[in-house]
Each structure stands twice: as structure tokens, then as C-alpha cells.
């Protein structure tokens, strides 16, 4: 249970960082909004997958 919590914290930090970086990138290059968003969603989905794997291991 504690392990699952730790993993979720890690996943949260990871997705938070992706979101933050994507925000910065969009602020710098608003014209690349679409591409950045796509890349962001894919990376977030990949991390999320790891989080779910941990949750199901509990």
C-alpha cells in the first residue's frame, strides 16, 4: 500500500513536470501548440500506464 502511494506520488510529479514544461513550451512558441500538446499527451499516457501497473499490483 505504501509502495503504491509512493508510485502515485512519482507519477504525479512526472505528469506535473510534463504539464509544466508543455506550458512553458507553449508560452515560448504558441504556434507549435498542437504538436506540443500531442507530445505531452503521449508522454503523460505512458507515465500513467506505469502508475496503473503499480496500482494493480496492490
Amino acid at each position, binding site marked *: 500500500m505504501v509502495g503504491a502511494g509512493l508510485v502515485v506520488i512519482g507519477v504525479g510529479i512526472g505528469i506535473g513536470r510534463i504539464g509544466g514544461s508543455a506550458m512553458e513550451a507553449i508560452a515560448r512558441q504558441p504556434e507549435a501548440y498542437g504538436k506540443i500538446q*500531442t507530445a505531452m*499527451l503521449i508522454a503523460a499516457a505512458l507515465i500513467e500506464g506505469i502508475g496503473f501497473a503499480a496500482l494493480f499490483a496492490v
Partner: protein
Amino acid sequence: MREKFLLKLLVTLFIISAIPSYAQHTESDDAPTELSTKEAEKLERKEYIKHHLQDSYDFNLFSYKQEDGTKKHIGFSLPIILWDNGLQIFSSSKFHHGEAVAENNGNYYKIYHNKIYKTDAEGTITYDEEHHPTNAKPLDFSFTKGVFMILLTCILMYLLFTSLAKSYVKNGSIAKGMGRFFEPIVLYIRDDIAIPNIGEKKYMKYMPYLLTVFFFVWFLNLFGLTPLGVNVTGNIAVTVALALLTFLITNFTGTKDYWKHIFDPLGDSMPWYGKLPIYIILIPIEILGIFIKPFSLLIRLYANMQAGHIVLMSLIGLMFLFKSWLGSPMSFMLAFAISLIELLVALLQAYIFTMLSALYFGFAAEEHDHHEEAPAH
């Protein structure tokens, strides 16, 4: 006009999110008095959520306790198809929602933990040391709730998209009615998913699959949020089948360059004795990668939908845990908010599945001109 539409949408969502809680309410509030301890209620909630996540042999919308203590089930039964010394077909109503032993042509069957076992007339199930049933399990091809929903979605999609195609022919390629909603989505899949990932030349070959899988997953995800209580995309067998299709298409349409990338990625840049030590590690990883890619697809979709349903059901269950004027509305609002997020997740997961499938097809269809890399992400 726009406000009116938004209002309608909100009201619809509100009703949709409220109905499952109503069904749950009738379930746990009328628990018999001798079981009304906290523990028993907790167990019942757990059972209810678990039951909801599983496929079932009948289409049960909701059930409640009648005044005389018997359970009343609202829904309809589906056919059971077994292969057990010949084909055995009978209605799932014979099981009385898993409580009774079903008889067909002199064979007796009983549902235990959502699986059908062959038993004697009294329905006795024998166990081994680890409490696993030792009864014979007939091959099960039953027309379950999940199969029902899949076929329903297929019919819905067929009717929807053939009628759209006809309307395009009739109106001279101008979207009308439903087409105004679906055209941007189809165009988005073509222009922002297929073309950038697969390339201008070959994307048309993959478009039918990408569109089908997108709408199939999306519609099934959305059905999962309705009070019908189906969880098709949260069923690992369904996601395995979908990912298997992606896997087969990727590998059967793979070009020479795709296989070369797996078995000889360094090409002529090095003599063979330089490549050998690298390849000992690299080639197994590449071969493993062929299987890991669709595997991550199936796990992602399954886990997302399953987790979404668990969270939603748990929050609804919280309402009956608090049973107070403060806690219950709060958890209701939370469940409502999560329902909205789940609407987004339903779309997002369909998008991710399509997107990653397109990415893999892009790898398979890629052809090197050895001067520049193919435009993949």
C-alpha cells in the same frame, strides 16, 4: 442558443451521473437487519463494485429487495452457449442470476465466481486445498453482456456511418446533421494522426482501421459511463483483441526497412565483427519491442477504464458510507466531477490508442531513402 445547448448538456450529464447512484441506493439501503452492521455493508459495497466490473451472463440493469425479502432484478437474460459433449444453448434465466442450478439436456451447470461449472443436480461444487473448484468447466462461448454491447456498438456504428456516407453522396460532399459533428473528428484523425505519423503516401491503407478503432473504443468507453453498467473496454479480453489487431497489421504490413531496422539496425556503417557484440544485446530487445508495443496499448486502455470505473463506483459508495447531510452531497459532487473527467478520459484513451497505433504503423510503413529520417515523432 449556445447557452441553451450547454444547459441541456449539463442537465443530461447530471441525470446520467445520478442514475447509478439511485440504483446503488436501492441496493444497500434495504439490507436485511441482521446484516446491517458496518462490516456487512462494506462487504456488500465491495461485492457490488466487483460485480459491476465483471462481465455477466445476463443484462441486469439494477436489482432491489422486495417487501417480502426476495430480490427483484430489472433487466433481461441472454443466451448461454456451451460446448460440452455437443452444443448446449439455453437462456441465462435458468440460472436465476447465479442463484440456481441450470439444467439443459440432462446436464447441470452452476455459476461460481462468474464462471460456469458442470455440477450434479444439487449444484455441489468440490474444492481443492486452495479453494479452487475442481468441477469440469465446459467451453464457454456465451453471449454475455459484453458481447451484447460490442454487437450493439457495431450495429450503431454501421448504421451511423453508412447513413453519413449516403448523406454525403446526396448533398454533394457537404456535411449535414450528424455529419457536422463527426466530420471534424474524422478529419482530425486523418490530418493530425494518420498523415504526420504514417506519411502522405501510405496513410490511406491504414485509415479504415484507425477510424474504426477510434470510434469503437470511444463509443464503448462512453457506454461504460451510462447507467447501463457495462465495462467492455475495461475487460482485458477486449483490449487484448484490439491490441492484437494492431500487432498483426503492424507486422503484416511491415516493409523491408521495418524488418531491417529490427534485425540489422546499423546497416553498412560497421563491419560484422563490430556489430556482433552490439547485436547480441540489441536484437533481442528489438524483438521484445515488437511485443511490448501492443502490450502497453492493451494494458493502458484496460487499466484506465478499469481504474476509472473503480474510482467512480467507490465515490458513489462513499455517499452511503457517510450518510450525513454534509458528507453525502460532497461525495456526490466529487463523483459528478470525476464523471466529467471520465468523459474526457473516454475520448483521450480512444485518441491515445489510435495515435499509438498510427505511430506503430508509421514504423512499419517507413521506407528509408537514406538521406533523411521518416517524419515520425
